[in-house]
């Protein structure tokens, strides 16, 4: 794996590559999910909806998706990152950090000063990664229950 990579906006033609890459994420048939994400974040061409990919000479090795959301949960406009993945054999090259830095810059250009994400508490690797980038527990707490 070469250490050279670049970050660019995702294109419609990346669809199959993203589906293939997503096999390293949570399991399940997510074709419909990704179709919706591409409709919303690739085709729209809006600067507050962002879908970026990391690409080497050979392939797409990572992606990050996020957007500006406003007034959900009573929150003023804020950047959210809700998908991030780097292919396992392309990790520890700084790709995740570069993608996160890039989407943070774009979110800032879109007018927000905070970026948020949500991580499963037991996912130590991902949680440690975000903490290494300076993220800390925010002022909202996720609550849930099983519906009887």
């Amino acid at each position, binding site marked *: 794996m070469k250490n050279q990579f670049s970050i660019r906006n995702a294109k419609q033609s990346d669809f199959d590559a993203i589906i293939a890459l997503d096999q390293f994420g949570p399991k399940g048939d997510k074709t419909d999910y990704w179709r919706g994400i591409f409709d919303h974040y690739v085709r729209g061409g809006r600067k507050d909806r962002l879908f970026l990919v990391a690409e080497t000479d050979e392939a797409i090795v990572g992606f990050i998706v996020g957007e500006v959301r406003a007034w959900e949960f009573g929150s003023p406009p804020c950047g959210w990152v809700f998908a991030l993945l780097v292919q396992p054999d392309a990790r520890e090259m700084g790709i995740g950090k570069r993608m996160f830095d890039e989407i943070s810059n774009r979110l800032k250009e879109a007018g927000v000063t905070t970026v948020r994400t949500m991580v499963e*508490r*037991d996912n*130590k690797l991902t*949680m*440690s990664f975000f*903490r*290494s980038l*300076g993220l800390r*527990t925010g002022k909202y707490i996720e609550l849930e229950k099983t519906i009887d």
Partner: protein
Amino acid sequence: MKLNKASLFALFAVLELASDPERQLSTTDIAEKYDISTHHLAKVMRNLVHEGLVQAVRGAGGGYRFAGNVNRTTLLDVIQLFESLSSELDVPNQWSHAGDPIIVELQAITREIDDLTKSVLDTVTLATALKSTRQRAETSAHGTDATAPPSSTQRS
């Protein structure tokens, strides 16, 4: 959460050594820098060596060197060598059991708190802690004193 002295001394030592893995420091070097008991720190260092987080280098100019992985070792890895972070309910030995349902509920709540505490400490790596510490030191050097601990975190 209350961290005991051994955990705090261990974090001083581990972060100090991890900030430059090539460097060797003696117990006295570390104790003098942080103005803490050499005797107490020596006991802590033996524990850290036993757990493989630091390595004792023998001979003249010998001392301790960091032997962990800054990107993998977390604050919890260090703290757990010296204490359990589980909350405790000070339940009397003899009582009527009328309070049992309340105790069970309180145990569920403290478990939720403990899980969060551990999740935070187990995802801050030494590298992350060192980076944040340096940033605080830089901020403080530029005016606002972000390094001065509030009174509740001062040494007793």
